[in-house]
């Protein structure tokens, strides 16, 4: 009887980590801040307004959903992790500054309510909410948007891009002719003189955020690097081993932000290491192939497609339990 006072019984997990969902999501928010800051420098205060509206509507729609389902206000506040902030930030960063102010509101609300909350909240969504929100905006308000705006800062190399097209549009031959981007690779890397979305243009900022996440231990930086390099190499292969395509193809469009922040979402990636290598490898092939075939920026669509295959990958590639051996076939 006395022993039960000395011995402490508790069920697993026994090792507790400070890495709660809240902490991880807050860190992802911090990692996205450099992109946001560069976006504001490049595109002005309209960028800040769009991102703020996007984040706010994402959080508010989560609160409204929980309120409708009958939760009390203090309960909602208590369970709030910053995941809807991350979703809102990503949606805000992947739209251009000439989008109307209602676009991120609808995108965020759709992403949070339909993709996340209807499937059961954080950790239960089968696809990344931010990806779906971006695609929703892309499909819905395409008629309103004709071109991306170019930033306030001129390019280093002194050359200018045609105002109507992004660098990627020319590279993919959107108008039937494959035009090599007029900008130097440094311009593509820094986003100077490059028209595009708020958070996508400056790759340096994205890399700073990704390195921060890797240092904190949230992101395994190998996975997105596999994705980016496979995508670049496959583009080279498709263009007849012309290595001039390698850097422009990985430095333009939404590949970087997609690879480092959207594809690596914990919920929508496979569970084991080998499965993750396979996942990101196929993702790279799919992105490069679809880009070449459709002459469009398809990073978000490729990630969406691969998100849907995660349950299948997980079904066939799983962690071998310790001490497990294959049962021998019964001889008959």
């Amino acid at each position, binding site marked *: 009887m006395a022993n039960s006072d000395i011995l402490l019984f508790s069920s697993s997990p026994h090792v507790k980590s400070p890495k709660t969902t809240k902490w991880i999501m807050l860190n992802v928010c911090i990692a996205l801040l450099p992109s946001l800051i560069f976006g504001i420098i490049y595109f002005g205060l309209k960028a800040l307004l769009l991102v703020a509206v996007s984040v706010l509507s994402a959080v508010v729609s989560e609160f409204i959903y929980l309120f409708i389902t009958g939760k009390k206000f203090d309960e909602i506040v208590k369970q709030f992790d910053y995941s809807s902030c991350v979703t809102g930030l990503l949606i805000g960063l992947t739209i251009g500054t000439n989008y109307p102010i209602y676009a991120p509101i*609808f995108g965020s609300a759709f992403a949070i309510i339909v993709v996340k909350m209807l499937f059961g909240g954080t950790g239960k969504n089968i696809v990344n909410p931010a990806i779906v929100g971006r695609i929703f905006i892309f499909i*819905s308000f*395409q*008629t*309103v948007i004709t071109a991306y705006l170019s930033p306030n800062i001129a390019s280093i190399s002194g050359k200018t891009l045609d105002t109507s097209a992004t660098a990627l549009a020319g590279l993919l031959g959107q108008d039937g002719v494959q035009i090599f981007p007029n900008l130097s690779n440094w311009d593509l890397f820094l986003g100077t003189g490059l028209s595009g979305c708020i958070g996508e243009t400056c790759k340096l900022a994205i890399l700073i955020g990704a390195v921060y996440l890797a240092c904190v231990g949230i992101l395994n930086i190998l996975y997105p690097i596999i994705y980016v390099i496979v995508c670049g190499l496959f583009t080279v292969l498709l263009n007849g081993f012309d290595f001039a395509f390698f850097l422009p193809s990985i430095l333009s469009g939404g590949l970087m932000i997609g690879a480092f922040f959207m594809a690596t979402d914990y919920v929508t990636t496979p569970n084991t290491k080998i499965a993750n290598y396979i996942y990101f490898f196929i993702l790279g092939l799919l992105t490069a192939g679809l880009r070449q075939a459709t002459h469009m920026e398809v990073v978000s669509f490729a990630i969406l497609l691969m998100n849907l295959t995660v349950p299948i990958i997980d079904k066939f590639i799983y962690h071998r339990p310790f001490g497990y051996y294959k049962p021998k076939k019964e001889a008959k």
Partner: protein
Amino acid sequence: MKKTNIKTIAVDGLITSNPTFKLVLGTCPTLALTTLAINGIGMGLAVTFVLICSNLLVSLLRKVIPNQVRIPAFVLIIATFVTVVRLVLDKFMPSLYSALGLYLPLIVVNCIILARAESFASKNCVLYSMADGLFTGLGFTFALTVMGAFRELLSSGAIFGVKLWDFEIAFFSSSAGAFFTFAIFIALFSYIESVVKKQKKIKDYAELVKLKEQSAFVGTTEAK
């Protein structure tokens, strides 16, 4: 088994076995044609006409058609009326005819019509079969019109072609939007139905309790 009369047929066709929202039949025209409310009405009324006429003929011939060849016979009857509808629409409403396009001849193999012929008209008398055709068709028309109005309102800011505001969400005119709208309406329909059923159950239970109390009261007085 439920007693068949016009009232139960009407409730069945419109609500409890609404072909679109409850049985999920005829999904192909539902998803493809609900981009505009007027298309929904046109398609729904065409199907209603074919349903009434085919149910009438199938019910009349139900003792003549041998059981082994009933499906080809039904298809033949349906195809006759679909041809009539196509010719009439082509002559008098060419714009609707071109909007419905391929889905008009496809009414021949529409599973709502085949299902009603197979499961109702070939077993019931002529009057009931016609009523069933009418109400099932109206249920289909109602579903298509509501969905079409919803999608038209969101995708072009208009309803029945009347522009209300200048705001568009093109998502709802795409096929993904069609599936999304369909799911929303099925959920809404089931929810409303379950609420109504619950209310009815509570009411029935209250009446039952009342009856029991009365009978108990009567019983005790008799015992005294």
